């Protein structure tokens, strides 16, 4: 199929799907979004931002948002539920009330599946949903807006610190029909509030699917949001995701995104600094093997003075896998005193593996600090011998070194269930399991 035919097929399926999508008030936005997607089509490597990640096979794969697949046994997936969280579970793109669990929440806090949240007309929701993440130059965001059915909405009133993290678990499993899911997360943190949101993605090995996720996060004045993402999709799945963050004055945002799953994945995190004194830390990376491909793309867009961003990305690549890091930093003319730093290191465990690293710094102000560095290397022979000479067998020595390497992205994270959720993904990868 040609690019146009792929796009036309998707537009046609939108016409069939649209009356069944939640939130009547969103109809106009959905129509506009599918129009934007149809105009732009799938991103191609001709666009600089997609130079190293080719969606051609994904576009041709005819994933269908309306594909009907049966429900999986959730017991198989309960290990993904982080203890001590309020939890929303989305199965095959739809909210699963039975597996979800929301405890008592402080006044002024909403934790809700998207499908329920959009059924009420809510001016606050209208102001932010599909407004934080722009569709310009982002056809997959537009596609998500057109088809979004479920996901997570978190709103935290001014001054409220959420006592527990919120986790949204996305599971796709239970059939062979090629399903596309377009989940959406919206997090609105009011002034002086604090919240931790965990997004977990997983799927059955026999299920062929595409997850196209969008997360919109608005961090109010002096508020703090921590965003943790574990991408453990089936290794035959596709995963494309964009997180758009907007930071108000003195807001703080930290993100940790670890990818161990999907045949092809792209995780894009864009942070717009809209108030002075705001700061963000973006951490992430991938552990890959076989023919997996994982792309981490970031943009820290410093638009105002006195803001800081740091980026740390680590990839571990075995077999014929490939990683991409595109680390964007924009310092606009008014953004004096910007302090930004970026580090990307890649560990190649096999001669067939490949890492592409592209720092992309656009600096239009003169009184700024912008550091960046990238390395590609293999396991340190001296370190391996040192460990082995102490009686540690080679496979265990390798695990220790890989664990230490990738552990730099969650260094400093407190011990507990949330950290364990990430560490488990690393440990599972090392043992070769799912």
């Amino acid at each position, binding site marked *: 199929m040609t690019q146009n035919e792929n796009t036309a097929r998707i537009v046609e399926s939108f016409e069939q799907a649209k009356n069944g999508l939640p939130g009547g008030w969103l109809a106009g936005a959905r129509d506009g979004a599918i129009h934007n997607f149809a105009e732009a089509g799938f991103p191609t490597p001709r666009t600089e931002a997609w130079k190293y990640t080719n969606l051609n096979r994904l576009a041709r794969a005819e994933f269908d948002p309306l594909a009907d697949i049966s429900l999986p046994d959730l017991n198989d997936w309960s290990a993904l539920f982080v203890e001590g969280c309020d939890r929303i579970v989305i199965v095959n793109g739809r909210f699963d009330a039975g597996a979800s669990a929301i405890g008592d929440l402080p006044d002024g806090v909403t934790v809700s599946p998207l499908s329920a949240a959009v059924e009420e007309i809510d001016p606050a929701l209208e102001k932010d949903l599909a407004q934080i993440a722009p569709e310009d130059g982002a056809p997959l965001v537009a596609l998500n807006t057109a088809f979004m059915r479920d996901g997570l909405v978190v709103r935290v009133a001014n001054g409220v610190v959420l006592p527990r993290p919120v986790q949204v678990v996305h599971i796709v499993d239970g059939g062979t029909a090629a399903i596309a899911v377009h989940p959406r997360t919206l997090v609105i943190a009011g002034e002086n509030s604090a919240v931790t949101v965990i997004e977990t993605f997983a799927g059955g090995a026999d299920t062929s699917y595409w997850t196209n996720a969008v997360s919109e996060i608005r961090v109010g004045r002096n508020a703090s949001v921590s965003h943790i993402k574990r991408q453990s999709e089936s290794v035959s799945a596709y995963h494309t995701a964009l997180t758009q963050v907007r930071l108000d004055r003195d807001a703080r945002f930290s993100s940790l995104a670890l990818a161990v799953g999907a045949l092809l994945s792209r995780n894009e995190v864009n942070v717009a600094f809209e108030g002075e004194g705001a700061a963000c830390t973006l951490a992430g990376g991938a552990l890959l093997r076989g023919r997996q491909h994982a792309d981490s793309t970031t943009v820290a867009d410093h638009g105002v003075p006195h803001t800081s961003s740091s980026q740390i990305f680590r990839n571990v690549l075995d077999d014929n896998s490939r990683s991409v890091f595109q680390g964007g930093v924009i310092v606009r003319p008014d953004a004096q005193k910007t302090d930004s730093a970026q580090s990307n290191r890649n560990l190649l465990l096999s001669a067939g593996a490949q890492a592409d690293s592209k720092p992309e710094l656009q600096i239009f102000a003169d009184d700024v600090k912008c550091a960046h560095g990238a390395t590609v290397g293999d396991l*340190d*022979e*001296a*370190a391996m*011998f*040192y*460990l*082995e*000479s*102490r*009686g*540690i*067998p*080679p496979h*265990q*020595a390798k695990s*220790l*070194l890989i*664990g*230490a*390497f990738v*552990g*730099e992205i969650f*260094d400093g994270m407190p011990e507990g269930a949330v950290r364990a959720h990430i560490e488990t993904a690393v440990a599972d990868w090392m043992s070769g399991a799912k």
Partner: protein
Amino acid sequence: MSFLSVKDLHVSVGGKEILRGIDLEIGEGEIHAVMGPNGSGKSTLSYVLSGREGYDVTKGEVSFKGQDVLGMAPHERAAAGIYLAFQYPVEIPGVSNLTFLKTAVNAVRVARGEEELDALNFLKFAREKGNILEMKDELLKRPVNVGFSGGEKKRNEIFQMAMLEPTLAILDETDSGLDIDALRIVSEGVNKLRAPDRSMIVITHYQRLLDHIVPDYVHVLAKGRFVASGGKELAHELEKDGYAKFGIEDDASAAA
């Protein structure tokens, strides 16, 4: 019976012959010093005994307690009781000294058919051994050798030796780069680990170390061969007359 037996050992590195026929017999509990100028093959000897890659044995054999050492992987040699204290201990960021040691001690215990130590017993064991080397708790928590001073690194090597309880310890220039206080702590640590069933090869450039760790035998290594062997008095001769007596030129002046 010989504990360690090295026979006509020839070793090449990158096609260049470094050891050119080493013979060495070490009995149980004996301490042998190997002295020699820079480039004589001292470190090559320590690496080939501990199994580092890139050191090609072209001739000869090494047996330890009757086992063929050259056929064993490095971790198997460690389990069999061979321990190398590195001249340049390797820094391993992101792995704490405690995690590293717990993994090593338990790997060796399992290989020796002993039970693994649980977290509590391991910590007790580590504290007990740490006291011998005056190791601060803080050094145990830090990543392996990262940010350690030269003396702390060498102390850490001997601390690991105390934890792994080898029967053959090879100390590769454990004294170099140490000031006199650090040397005292390290060599006192080594002396506390002397045991009737533990042999040691003490490789050094300087006689100074042998005032603290008194050897039973001294061997002089030059250009890949032992050119002299004798009792501990041989070290004093070297101290007095330098390597020149053995027809060896040493730019670095061994008698320093």
